[in-house]
Structures are given as C-alpha cells and as structure tokens.
C-alpha cells in the first residue's frame, strides 16, 4: 500500500524537487499550489503526510495546519512544515499549531527521505 503524500507549495522548483526526491513510484503524490487547495485536497484525499509551505497564497501554512489538526477527520494527518523562514519563533509557532515536524529550506533530499520514512513507518 503506497502512502499518500500532499505537497503544498507555490514554488514550482520546490514541488519538482520533492517529486524527484520522493519518487512517483514509491508514493502517491498530490500537489497543492495554495492554502485553500491544500485544505481541499487534504480533506478529500486524507493523505498520510503533508509537506506544508508556510508562505503560500490565500491561506498560509500555519492556518492550514491549524485547521487540519482541529478537524477530527484530518487531525491524524502528519504534517511537516516546510519553509524558508528560519527563525525560532516560526519553529515555535509551527509546534503550537500542531505540526509534527519542521524542515527549513534549503534541505537535503536524503534527510527529507529519512524524515518521511521515520514519520510514516516509524509510527506505523
């Protein structure tokens, strides 16, 4: 059974990199270009994991995370915040809104894969 992973980012190169890193053959990859779309897909598809960019059009990543975690139907979805923001306050804020992990751009694809394995299979 392949895990569903939602990539929510408005930057095409990042989406492309995540696609390349994760591999279309190993994961069922979904892509959202803004916050609204991310919420809609997450609610509809109930992915196992969401990579959530913070600075996104329409609804920012924090709010998307908060909404998903607040909804019992989507609260189980693992969320990794993915952002160029590196301040400690942002990391704290991510934790507060219920994010499971936090990755700072630029990130190493190897590291990201390890994190995904850990989150998806470590807990399963």
């Amino acid at each position, binding site marked *: 059974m392949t895990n569903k992973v939602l990539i929510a980012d408005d930057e095409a*190169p*990042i989406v492309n990199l995540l696609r390349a890193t994760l591999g279309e053959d190993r994961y069922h990859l979904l892509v959202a270009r803004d916050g609204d779309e991310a919420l809609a897909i997450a609610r509809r598809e109930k992915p196992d994991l969401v990579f959530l960019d913070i600075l996104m059009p329409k609804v920012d990543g924090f709010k998307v995370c908060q909404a998903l975690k607040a909804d019992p139907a989507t609260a189980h979805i693992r969320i990794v915040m993915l952002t160029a*923001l590196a301040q400690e306050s942002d990391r704290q804020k991510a934790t507060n809104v219920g994010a499971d992990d936090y990755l700072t751009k630029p*990130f190493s*694809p190897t590291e990201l894969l390890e994190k995904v394995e850990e989150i998806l299979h470590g807990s399963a």
Partner: protein
Amino acid sequence: MGDAGNEPKKPTLLSQRYVAIGAMLLVGVALSLVSFFLLRSWERDRAQGEFRERAAVRAAALGRAADRGIEVVASIRGLFDASIEVERHEFAAFTRSALAAHPEIEALEWIPRVPQKQISAYVAAARADGHDAFQITEQDPSGLLVPASNRPEYFPVFFVEPLKRNEVALGFDLGSDALRRRALEEARDTGKPTATAPVRIVQETEGQLSFLVFVPVYEKLKPLDSVEQRRWHLQGFAIGVFRVNELVEASFQGQRPGPMSLRFYDTTDRDNELLMYAFEPDSGPMSGLVTGEGRANPRSGSQWETVLAVGERRWALVFEPIGGSNGWVPWLPWAVLAAGFALIGVAGTYGYGLVSRTAQVEQLVVQRTEALEASNRKLRESESSTRAVLMSMTEGLAVFTQDGRVLWWNDAVAMLTGLPEREAVGRHIDDVMRMKAPDLENSEALSVLRGTLLEGVEAKDPLYITILRPERRELSVRVFHIDLGSGHVLPGVVIRDITGEREMDRRKDAFVSVASHELRTPMTAILGFTELLLKREVAPERRQAWLQEVYQESRRLTTIVDDLLNVSRIHSGKLQLRREQVSVAHVVEAVVGTFKPTTDQHQFIAAVSGDVPAVWADRDKVGQVLMNLLGNAIKYSPQGGKVSVAARHDPERRRVVVSVADEGIGIAPDDQQDLFTSFHRIRPPETDGIRGTGLGLYIVKALVELMQGEVWVESEPGKGSTFYFTLPTDYDEFGGGG
C-alpha cells in the same frame, strides 16, 4: 522699554525736590525773620513799657517830693497864724526839724511886707536880734548886692534858716527882682503856694538852679475872698528855697534812676521853656549849668514825657532811655534770628544732602533696573529661543509639576494627544491619561508611566506606547526628572515617535525575510537537485530535466541578487546616474531584442515614432526599467499575447512618455496602489507558478524617479495592463533633480 520717556522725567522729579527744599528754606527764613521782628518788637515794647513805668515812678516821686517841700513851707504860715508875734528864735526852732527832715530845702525864710516908712524899725529889730550889718539890699545888674533903692514897699528876707549858709540873703528884697516878684505877686493874689521860675539864688555858691516857693501869710481874721482883700491884708510870705538837684536826689531816695536820662523844663511860659535839670547816668546831674537852654531834641523816639504841677508852675519831665536802648535785650531777637538761620542752614544742608543722596540712590536704582531689564531681556530672549526650539522639536517634550500637573508641553505632544498646550497646562497627568486611555493599544503602559513620573520609579529603558487614534503611532517614552534642588523635582517626558523607525524595522525584517525566502527557494532547488544527481543513478532524460532545474534556478538566483543589490543601492542612495542623451527608440529596440530569443510565444510590437526626441537619462537604467516592465508583461500575459512598447512626445510637459502594454491578467484597482512598493507581490490565483522577487516594480519606480520621471499603471483585470513612465527632454530638468 521707554528710555526716551524716562529722560525728561528724572530731572523734573529731582528739581521738584530741590524746589521743595528751597521752598522749605524760604519758609524757614521767613519764619525766622518774622520771629526776629516780632520778638524785637515785643522786646522793644516790653522795654519801652518797663522804661515808662520806671519813668512814671520817678516822676511821681519827684512830684511827691516837691509837694512835701511845699507843705513844709505852708506849715510856716500856720506858725504865723497861731502867734501874735513870731520871734527870730521861735522861727529857727520851728523850722529846725523840718529842715533836718528835708535836705532838699535849702532854706526856709520869712519875708515880711515892709512899707517904706517901717524900714528903719525892721532894720533896728534885725540888728537887735544880732544881725549888726542888716540892711535891705537888691542886686545890681552885675549881680552884686547893693542897698535897695526907694520903693513904696519892700519884701526883705527877715528870718532865714539855716542861717549859717544863707546869711548873705538876709535883707535881700525879693520884690526887687522881676522873676521873684512875679511869683510873689501871684502868690499874694491867689493865696496859693507859688513857685518861681528857676533862679540862681543869691546865696548860691555852686552855680545851681533853685526855685522859691512863696506861701502868702495874711493878717489874722480878715476876709480874703477877693484879690483886693488879699492884697490889702497881706502880711508877708513864708518862703522855701529848693535846690533842684537836691530835690531830685531826695525824690530818688538814694536810688539810681537806672539807664535813663532825665531832663525837666519849666514850661509855664510856653515861649520860654527853661531847662531846670538834666541827669545823665554817665555824668550825673547837672542842674543849672544849662540855664535858659531850650528844649533839647530827643535823641530817640522812645523818650517819655510827663507834666508836673508844682506851686502853680508846670514842669515837663522828659525821660529818655540811654543809648537808644531803653533797657531791652537787643541781642535776643538777633540770637533767635541767628539760631533760626543756623537751623535752616543745617536743615537745608541735610535736606540737600538727603535729596542728593536720594537722587543718587534713584539713579542707582534706575541703572540697576536697566541692567536687570537688560539681563532679563537677554534671559527672555534666550528663554524664548530655547522655548521655540523645544516647542518645535519633532520629539515630544512635556514637563510636569511635582504633583503631576502639566507645566508645559510642546507642539509634538499637542499633536500626539490632540490637546493644545494652552488647554493642557494645569491639567493633572491622570486627567490626561483618562482622556487618552481609550486611544491606546495597551493602557497598562500608562500606569507604568505614571509610576515612573510621579513616584520616581527609576526607568532606564524607554516605555513603548502605541496610540491608535487619530492614527496609529508608536511612541517611545523616556522619563526624566529635573532636580531643582532641596527636594524639588520636576518630572518630564521625552516622547519620540518611532512609528517610522518601527516601519523601517518591519520593512527591513520583511526584506530580510523575503530575501531569505526568495533566495532559499532557488538555493533549495539547486542544492536538492545537485544532491540527487550526485547520489542517484538516473535515466539521462531525467538527469537532463534536473540539470535544467539547476540552471534555471541559478539564473533566477543571479537575477534576485542583482535586484537586491539594486534595491540596496537605491536605499543607500549610492546609485550613480550618468547624464546622457538617450534615444528611446534605440533602447526599446535593444531590450526587445534580448527578450525575443527567450520566448517565442509572445508577440512584440515596438512603436516609437521618429519624431520622439532624445531624453536626458542614464541609458543603462532606462534599459533596466524596460527589461523589468517587459519581463512582467511577458510573465503575466498568456502565451501568444501581444506586448506593445510605445513612446510619444509630450512637448507641453517636455517629456517623453513610454508605455508597455500587455493583454494579461490585469491588476485589480485595490492592488494597484501598493504595486510599486518593495516586496509587494500580488498573487491572485492566476499568477500560480509565476515567480518574482517583488522587487521589479519597486526598482522601476525608484529608477524613473531618480531620472526625474513618473511611473503609473492603467489596468483592467482580465484585459491587461499598461505601465507608463516619463523621461525629461530638457537637460536642466534632469540635472536639476540631481
């Protein structure tokens, strides 16, 4: 102040004072003189009165002495009336005691009336009494005694006492001398004691004047009612001889008459007033020495005269004070005058000194006042300039009283609080805080501020307060205390409006944040794909695609770095502009040329007419502006869309207007405002996948404005946007802006 107004005033005031002193002195002099004259007059009157009183006493005493002498003479008549025959020794005995008591009486005599036929009998009787040489005599013109010539009757001196010094007078016929005879006949006719005019008597040895008083003696028991009867019955006369000097001295009763002279005159015959007696205190009495002398002229106006009736004669007594001073104290008024003048002198000197010193003091006061005013003026000037500076400071400055009332605050505080200074002064800080509390974001800051202000809580760091109305302002409030000494402390605040700084900080943070974000995205892609390429064995076409990603993101990184550098240069004002004549047509052609190879899905239309003049600008910067605008036009318009670049001349405003139009998504009116601010990227859904730094239009605007141009946009969502910018055609205008 009115220097000119004060000048004439001072001397007037001063001279008024001198006039006052002068007037006072004049009044003093007048008072002294009046006192002097009054006193002198009073003193004279007093002395005159005293003198007259003394003179009157003297005159009365003289009158009494004469009366007493005449009474003595009259008493002899009593002797003859009481006796049938008076013997010579009886007369001597009778007169002896009277003569002893009255030294002023030179002699008392009995003068019988002797008809010619009885002469021999009388001579015989006298000779029988022991006067062997007795005969009746008279004086010849030379004054010698000679036997009397024949007359019907004689009035010889028959008895005389004291005999010793008067013996020569025995037998002298008093009827032989006209002067004596006149008194004699008057006495006979009137029956009254009658005095002679002053006469030198025959027995006189000292040259004195005397007078005789005749008292008629008539036959006993005969009627004497008429002159005829008295003439007929006359028996003889009792006579008293008085020496004037002795009479006067007797009246003095041994006392000096005082500092006065006395003269008396026999004034019975008004045509022939005779000096009888003269007394001068210096030289003493000198009766008779001036016989027949007329009335002397008075030596002063202060003489006093009275008239005595003595033996049917009138004596005028003239008293005169000696030396013109009739016993008054002449130095007293002068002493008073001198004392008065001395006092006036002292008072005047003192007053003059006082006024002078007052004037000096006033002068000093005026000088000091002027100096004080000058220094006050300086202080005021300095104060008002300091105040002007403080009032117009951009930082808010407020000072409170110790109990927390507004002492003053400047315009900046007035602006922030909405309370002008004149309405704020005197208000308590709590009052002001209550008014402002609803306008604050965090009213707790106020209680902290209150604590530091009024309770002296030390606050090293400024307090931050945000006012929401009338517009949001962020304030840094620093409390200070002005120590005026002796526990008097005025609290104050310096309020700095840090809204701008905060905004700058926020922009900087945003810049850093966005820059970081914008840089990290391509970096993440580059690093990530590179890592994948290095670690994974992948199919060639996939590797090609990944490398393509790396290449594109590297180019993007370069663009971003360039933009950031430009923005940084613009921010710091370090952007250097060249000034050159630029042909807009050439630049448009060049820029469009660089874009054509990168996209074959867009249609470029460049329409720059030949009559567009050259502009004064920096060729490279104009190129950059066009690059950015064309880049945006391509980015936000669909494939196959038209991108038109045009330029036209606006001769009126001496501008060339360049426009870049696209047929893209357009921009909503709300978004157009913020379009040219830095890092503002509008991201409507249609812009998905369109990437930018948000710096492009910001840079366009900055560059165009540096070249003294304007930039604006006209757009309709869904139909496309047209960006315009202008450039000056005049060198002056370009250069004028720097």
